[in-house]
């Protein structure tokens, strides 16, 4: 099957001249969960920001439905790809529902306002992440984790086919983390959503993801099915940590550090 989204030989150069990412290729198919793992500074965020169209690659190309990303009209592209940044600043006390409603922008006409249908979908998105009770709260009054859920709902309200997430679970507690993964799995099953997610939670990647891409020093160190990537030798290499251990237990992979 032809992938929904492909990146070919991507490289990114910092304005100062150093390469942050080089020769990264990956394909994402419909109804899949892909995890991007790697040490801090390995180029994960740079990669996902390129995929979201926020950074322009120095070389290589990104194809959505076989068409280069930059050839897509921004509004049409926004109907296909949603992006959730690592942390969002909140300068103004927008209501959570207003933030989620902004995700409907690509689906409303240039000069029209979001209507009742959009509000319903926005509320639905908030419900699907278990944050309906936050709808009328000011985002400035929310905790980091609560705000993450609102921003995730905003991305889901966009009704994309591809969802790019930069460490969405970073400030979530165990319960919300489980809720997030359940939501993503459900959208994968029911809507055929493709998800690319940066995470440091290796335990999570072992059971729920279809594919793992491991970065090291701006390059792909390993990619494949979780059971192939989550191996002691591979992880030691990716994180530069000789004492990391991984072991398959049933359909799960346990990852731990040996003291």
């Amino acid at each position, binding site marked *: 099957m032809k992938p929904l989204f492909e990146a070919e030989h991507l490289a990114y150069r910092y*304005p100062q001249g150093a390469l942050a990412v080089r020769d990264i290729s990956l394909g994402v198919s419909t109804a899949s969960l892909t995890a991007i793992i790697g040490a801090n500074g390995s180029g994960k965020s740079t990669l996902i920001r390129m995929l*979201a*169209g*926020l950074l322009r690659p120095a070389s290589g190309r990104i194809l959505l439905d076989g068409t280069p990303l930059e050839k897509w009209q*921004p*509004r049409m*592209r*926004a109907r296909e*790809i*949603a*992006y959730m*940044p690592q*942390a*969002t*600043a*909140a*300068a*103004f*006390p*927008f*209501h959570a*529902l*207003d*933030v989620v409603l*902004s*995700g409907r*922008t*690509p689906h409303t006409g*240039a000069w029209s*306002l*979001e*209507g*009742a249908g959009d*509000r319903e979908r926005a509320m639905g998105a908030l419900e699907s992440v278990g944050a309906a009770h936050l*709808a*009328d709260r000011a985002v*400035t009054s929310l905790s*980091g984790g609560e705000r993450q859920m609102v*921003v995730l709902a*905003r991305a889901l309200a*966009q009704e994309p086919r591809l969802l790019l997430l930069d460490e969405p679970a970073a400030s979530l507690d165990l319960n919300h983390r489980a809720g997030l993964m359940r939501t993503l799995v459900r959208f994968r099953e029911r809507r055929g959503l493709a998800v690319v997610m940066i995470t440091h939670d290796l335990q999570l990647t072992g059971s729920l993801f279809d594919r793992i891409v491991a970065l090291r020093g701006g390059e792909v160190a390993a990619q494949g099915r979780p059971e192939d990537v989550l191996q002691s030798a591979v992880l030691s290499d990716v994180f530069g940590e000789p004492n990391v251990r991984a072991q398959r237990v049933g359909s799960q992979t346990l990852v731990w550090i040996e003291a």
Partner: protein
Amino acid sequence: MIAPPLRLQLVKSMAILALLLVVSTAVALAIGRQPIEFSKLLADPFSRTLFFRLRLPRVLMGLVIGASLALTGGALQALFRNPLADPYTLGVSGGGALGASLAIALGWSARILGVPLVFVAAFCGAMLAVSVVRAIAGTGALVLPGALLLSGVVVNLISAAAVLTVQYLADPNSALRILRWMVGSLDVVGLQPIGQMLLLLVPGWIALLAFSRQLHLLAIDEDTAATLGVNVARCESAVHALCSLIIGVAAATGGSIGFVGLIVPHAVRMMFGEDLRIVLPGSFLLGGAFLVLADALARTILPSGELPVGAITGLLGGPAFLWLLRRRQSYAVL
């Protein structure tokens, strides 16, 4: 309680604020040091002159400048994602005033394509101020909120010092003209100068209001706006240029009137919520009403003579700024 749908909220807010503007304008036209008998307006030449040459232009000037300052204030706050931004705190008014005072001192009365050179100079000054402030505060993608305001204040101080220097070196006649609008005055004789301003301002207002949705998305989050289809770089440049144009023209005629652009958008937010598609047109209407009333107060509060309107807005706006600054500490800017 969940806010009502946007369309309803928009209609309601615009109706209320438009009514407020009409009432304030009527009140401001009715009061003044010299009573006007409105029943004899057409018959009595004195009343007619007083009304059409002095009172009406003055009130309209307040409306036009107040609306311009508040609209640009709301837009700049969204653009920089900073609730304390306004033409005054960002040094844009100061830059515009410097450009205008240079033009006055040099006796430039020429026009380019019908546009007075003073306006062009003020626009360039305002544009330069925004660029300087942005260059200092911006570190790549991030604009530091504190650095933004500090550099704005410093650009304003430098502009004020430069205006003083220009004024000192200029001939006495020009110096007096510079001094008169430095304090912020809406004095105007006849409707013609207002017509000249509107020629530039109306397209500027319309174009800036057309960016309401993009600014709304930018105010929520810059990266998110970009992935929702906003061309962030183009939007930023356009809003810069439009704000510089509007503030330049306003500063070239009305001088620098402080804090209108700061407090009016916040008042609209408190009444009708954060959506920029309401805040921007709402600030336009409320800004007009606010300055018209402040000026009516300035004209009549003293037993003899009048207070510069900039003094009134400053006395009201300064404390409001401090209050916002204190409240802002509870805003989470990560």
